């Protein structure tokens, strides 16, 4: 199992879908952000798994994963800053209450 690419990929897929579910179901902006982190980690798992099993990706996968992590960090920074900004305006972190603009 641990030597089977499919096992890692299935695990990655399940983690990704858990993240997707959370993103679709949670109301809190920060919860949703966490779910995005889960999804990105799922992708990283997949990338590293490919790196382990596909020779031409050997070293590359690790680098890509590191870069993805950095991007995730950047995303989190921006996201949290926006969350804080809107919290100042609206006094709630619940995203579904931000629905002044619609239709």
């Amino acid at each position, binding site marked *: 199992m641990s030597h089977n690419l499919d096992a890692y990929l299935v695990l990655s897929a399940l983690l*990704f879908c858990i*993240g997707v579910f959370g*993103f679709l179901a949670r109301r809190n*902006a920060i919860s*949703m*952000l966490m779910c*995005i982190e889960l*999804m*990105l980690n*799922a*992708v990283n798992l*997949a*990338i590293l*798994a*490919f790196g382990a099993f*596909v*020779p*031409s*990706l050997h070293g*590359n*996968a690790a680098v*890509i994963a590191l*870069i*993805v992590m950095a*991007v995730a960090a*950047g*995303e989190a920074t*921006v*996201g949290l*800053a*926006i*969350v804080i*900004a*809107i919290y*100042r*305006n*609206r006094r709630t972190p619940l*995203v579904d209450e*931000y629905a*002044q*603009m*619609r239709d």
Partner: protein
Amino acid sequence: MTGPELAAIAPFGYVVALAVLVILADIARPGDERVTIVIGTLGTLVGLGLVVAVGLGGTVQPVFGGAYQLDPLTTFLDMLFLAIAFLTILFSPDYLRPRHYPLPEYVATLLFAISGAMLISAARDLLVLFLGLELLVLPGYMLVAYAKRDGLATEGAIKYFLLGSFSSAIFLFGLAFTWGYTGTTSVAGVASHLQQVVTSGQVPAAGLLMGLALMTTGVAFKIAAVPFHYWTPDAYQGSPTPVTGYLSVGPKIAAFALILRLFAEALAPMRADWVGVVVVLAALTMTLGNLVALTQDNIKRMLAYSSIAHTGYILVGLAAFAGAPAGSTAASAGIAGVLFYSAAYTFMNLGAFAVVAALQGRPGVTSQIATFAGLGRRAPLLGALMLLFLLSLTGIPPTAGFFAKAYVIEAALQSGGLVPWLAVIAVVNAAMAAFYYLRVVVVMYMQEPAADAQAVTDSRPMRLGLLIAAVATVLIGLVPGLLIPMAQAAAAALQ
């Protein structure tokens, strides 16, 4: 690195440096926004010159082992991106200043975003593409939120951010599948691997197709194609108006650049697999965008839906590429159509938003269409310019928008399969769209101004920017021959 390599990478580096320079200048002389404007505008102009200088004569120069490549496509798009930056910087002060938002961070963030777009245009490595995309959108989220004391702006920003990150994750997942399947991150490598698969006559593996689906979803989101467009109206409406203008062209065209590099280059061998999806997306996008735009009362929201519709028109060009055999004139016409349309759309749409921004020169003026009442009388020149931009958006000759539509339609007609029908859908949509664009004209020219109508601003930068947008809109329409060879050369670079 060799000299030509340095030259090739120079524009990107230059823009990043420019962004940093803006920040540094602000630190050196805090509060002097004139400096920011001067550095921003002159800097982008110099950048434009740099792009022209290094890209002149159709140079093709790979750098970083081919991960980055200067070619006519890069040049074409970079010019466009810098023009967008230049105009956006011109349009912004009138809106931001009265609302007490600082300019330096704004300009720097914008330039970072533009650098991301320029990176996309040159990237021939999927990881670099992804990074370029992130570099494009992260500052974008912040620009939307830039009016941070405004509830709607931050609402738009968080929606944009959450959904954008969501789609980025999906897109990245798709990239991972592609990497796993082809074992490479290079555009050329992916293309040649896929070409082998297609040539060998195998049915593409499910994993690859799934990756394709994930990537399609990701980029469809970025270009705001229906049904992945949901963020657009809210983000556009919420953004500070100059940012809306930027959003409607910058990230959209950059995302199309991504599509050209990814789909029209890396995934081109599989075009038979994805052309159907593009056709459906194009049809849906045009139709829904226009349908909903018909019923809007807020001009920014209306133009948001209109920009969705224009995404659909640009997708027609992409579909034309995908529906035609590789290397055919039709395929290259499709790409050239995408590029030409992008260029035309840039000027007319930015112009339209600039007029909205000019109207909102004082805090408290909303972007309801009713704000335009009697504009033709209150500010005849501004009204006439808005008329021009709206006509161009409608596609009335002899404006840029008309020729752009004609271009993609001509390309679609040359293509195969169901694609020619998109031409018919496109024109029916164009007729429908005329209704809401002309509705604004009705308000501007055929209604009396409200009693408490505010004066419009016309600072020198705003005027200059509007003039440039208008001249470009007319010029591209009247003498499309100026732009076509460039678009064709850029398209040829992809083949």
